[in-house]
């Protein structure tokens, strides 16, 4: 077995020191009737070569979208990852360390997390970021729990705009199913200037997404102002890449901002591990979930970093903690930090512009022939909803897949009434040539 360093001689000497004559004797604590008494029914051990052959064959049985013309998005995006992100994250000292409980032995991770928190506040225009949560959907659930704690017992309504990702809404429903809170849907598929009557003085918060799930972008000022007038907090779900061109959640008046951070240098990886981003205004910091790294000084007065405000957390506060989270997504947060520091303001602006222009080209190109039309006229950032006028979505997706094109995500999966529609995402990786090929297929 490859990972056991003790030789038979070592083991004999160790058993002698312990004072037992067999490995079995070490398991005397386990009552005999409760022992398994047979080998586990699992495949036999594989050496590295066999394992590599076996798993490569499994991988070869897939047709990964990231290697094709991928117009799939809906919350997970095929963005380009610069090589230095992989290089830094592959440093043993980062990826084989753990939660920096011993600050002196973890200044590397701690400083990188402090920098991540800072980068996220710069990105979002919020005051504080934590050191990561599991993914965008659970980050939203945690944000809503923060809002409910802040709002107190009189405000138990959580108003969620229909622009929010349907899976985020499902996860929120799961998290709140046994707590005294009510989730209420509001608005249409896109954000517009219409009033949201569900937001009233009994609302703890309004959750709204910019861009919305269908890719649309709106001026959020009217809904934010309305919610604030009602005394509700505003939680904005955002796309990190979009902030190269769009107003930041902090500038929109958000109280809490959450996002899926996968697009910041993290692989698609069939949906995870991803990165939950949560940032908020200063006044909510003691209600935040998850790890926080703070600046301090050491005995010699040197600037350094440590885990802080831990009295919020489960290992101290137990059932009264702000959240149950322990292990988070540290390595993914590191990747996001490296990505953002590599791009800088101009790189982020440029990648956002590329998405924007290619999306608009695709939107125009795919609807020019008349066989598909836009579901919404509203402005979009990097994806848009398309209605197929004269053929089933599944049939078209299958035909496109045969040409190596993943044409989009079928919307009927979440919205049965939209089963003739798909959601098309266009990142900076898509070429004019790929978009034209998709358009020709659509028109053909």
């Amino acid at each position, binding site marked *: 077995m490859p990972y056991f360093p003790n030789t038979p001689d070592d083991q004999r000497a160790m058993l002698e020191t312990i004072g037992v004559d067999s490995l079995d004797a070490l398991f005397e604590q386990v009552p005999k009737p409760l022992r398994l008494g047979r080998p586990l029914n699992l495949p036999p051990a594989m050496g590295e070569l066999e394992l590599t052959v076996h798993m490569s064959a499994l991988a070869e049985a897939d047709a990964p979208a990231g*290697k094709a013309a991928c117009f799939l998005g809906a919350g997970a995006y095929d963005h380009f990852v610069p090589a230095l992100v992989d290089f830094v994250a592959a440093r043993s000292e980062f990826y084989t360390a*753990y939660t920096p409980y011993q600050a002196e032995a973890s200044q590397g991770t701690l400083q990188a997390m402090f920098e991540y928190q800072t980068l996220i506040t710069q990105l979002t225009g919020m005051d504080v970021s934590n050191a990561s949560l599991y993914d965008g959907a659970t980050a939203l659930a945690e944000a809503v729990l923060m809002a409910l704690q802040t709002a107190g017992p009189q405000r138990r309504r959580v108003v969620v705009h229909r622009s929010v990702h349907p899976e985020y809404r499902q996860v929120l429903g799961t998290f709140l199913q046994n707590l005294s809170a009510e989730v209420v849907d509001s608005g249409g598929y896109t954000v517009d200037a219409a009033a949201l009557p569900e937001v009233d003085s009994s609302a703890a918060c309004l959750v709204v997404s910019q861009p919305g799930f269908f890719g649309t972008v709106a001026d959020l000022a009217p809904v934010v102002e309305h919610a604030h007038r009602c005394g509700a907090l505003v939680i904005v779900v955002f796309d990190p890449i979009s902030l190269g061109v769009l107003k930041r959640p902090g500038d929109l008046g958000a109280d809490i901002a959450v996002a899926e951070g996968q697009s910041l240098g993290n692989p698609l990886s069939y949906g995870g591990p991803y990165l939950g981003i949560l940032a908020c205004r200063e006044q909510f910091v003691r209600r935040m979930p998850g790890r926080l790294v703070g600046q301090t000084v050491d005995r010699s007065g040197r600037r350094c970093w440590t885990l802080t405000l831990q009295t919020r957390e489960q290992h101290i506060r137990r059932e009264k903690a702000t959240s149950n989270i322990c292990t988070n997504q*540290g*390595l993914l947060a590191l990747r996001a930090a490296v990505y953002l520091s590599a791009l800088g*303001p101009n790189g982020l602006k440029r990648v956002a512009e590329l998405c*924007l222009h290619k999306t608009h080209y695709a939107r125009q190109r795919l609807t020019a022939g008349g066989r598909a039309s836009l579901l919404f006229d509203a402005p979009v950032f990097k994806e848009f909803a398309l209605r197929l006028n004269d053929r089933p979505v599944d049939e078209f997706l299958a035909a496109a897949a045969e040409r190596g094109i993943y044409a989009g995500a079928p919307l009927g999966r979440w919205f049965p009434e939209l089963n003739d529609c798909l959601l098309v995402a266009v990142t900076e990786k898509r070429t004019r040539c790929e978009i034209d090929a998709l358009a020709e297929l659509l028109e053909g």
Partner: protein
Amino acid sequence: MRNRQAVQLLFELSKPGAEAVRWPAADVPESAPSALLPAGACAAAPPPLPELSEPDVVRHYVNLSTWNMSVDTHYYPLGSCTMKYNPKRNERLAALPGFAEMHPYQPDDTAQGMLRLLYESQQFLAEIAGLPAVSLQPAAGAHGELTSLLVAAAYFRDLGQQRTTVIIPDAAHGTNPASAALAGFEAVTIKSTPAGYVDLDALRARLDQRTAVFMITNPSTLGMFEPNIARIAEAVHSVGALMYLDGANMNAILGVARPGDFGADLMHFNPHKTFSGPHGGGGPGAGPIAVAERLAPYLPVPVVVCRDGKYRLDFDRPKSIGRVRSFFGNVGVLVRMYAYILTHGPEGLRRVAEQAVLNANYLLAKVASLLPVPQGPRCMHEFVATASRLKAERGVSAMDIAKRLLDYGFHAPTVYFPLIVPEALMIEPTETESKQTLDAFVEALRTILAEPAEVLHQAPHTTPVCRPDDVLAARKPVLRWQPEAAQS
């Protein structure tokens, strides 16, 4: 050797005009973003991120990395965290495009290899747990706890039973009571016996028709197998409640005993502990759960099913609690778990437990001659020593010892947990350390205990910083860098 560049923050290295990534020119027509987007939504300028060149970024992070201890560089006996070696083959395999570049909404037909891997992973975990139904969706152990408790709540709701409490021993991980509260239950804490076992009388006194779940960590956080586990399970089941196993310590019993066989109805795994997923400086982990047949209908959607040789995601589960996260789960971690299980096979997994328990007992035998180990001469995969006498006699605390170990090139054990042992040093060697490493650790400990108290109070002496002021950090939180003009 000290590199000033590493001390500086990214933001202090920033220089207007520097850039590490240059994007190509657009191959489509461009117009101003303000012409395409609503005026009220457009940013006047991009976010004020730092500006750096690629060599700057790489040197910064590589230098930072050298300020960490890690499994690849140091012995890391952090109790309860199972800091075992992270196999390099797993990294290479998980990076294959057929896994790493799969979009979560690809059609099932294009993901048959991925789905087969996940389907088999469900089966492997069911066999190891002795519980037939598995959800791979939870993102970490605590998330698995929450998911399991939501499953339990849905089960009792379906039965029409009003059960409102979850009973938890005081030696449990803090995530247990926190998860119970989040799932809408009242967390009831019971005292453990002085030896760290479940106090059966205390448990019986709290068990009644209101009890939904009893959460147990077995082997315990003291590294002991619960001798009364069968009677505990019987007592829990006799009032119609469920027994939950916190699977943090599965490393000790792989292939030796199965939670389903000793009475657990639900459990979570920590693949980043038991099955060698790299800990990543604080994640990612994963928290798959295994449950008894009668709880299977309530598992989150989707699960992977196989019909007629085709694998697909099954969403049609009307009694499901719903989703607990977006997409499928922490698949990258699960791919590494799959590789680890296949590398070991049935005999190999049992040997993981044997070697982990051998290493822990050997270390216990040696450490016990230096520091009291209240639980006695045997343990499973970890044990807890105490510095309480040392603290009383010489003023030397568990923290002092932990900090001084860093000077000798060892990561510290977990300290001050579990809460039931004063001045606790919780030591978990794992199966991937050698006798020689353990011997060197014991010699370092022996040397440390002979050193003057003052040397220990001032430790560590060789690390980049020494004893950050945690009180200052919490009293005046500075949680981000700001330009000097913006600082108050």
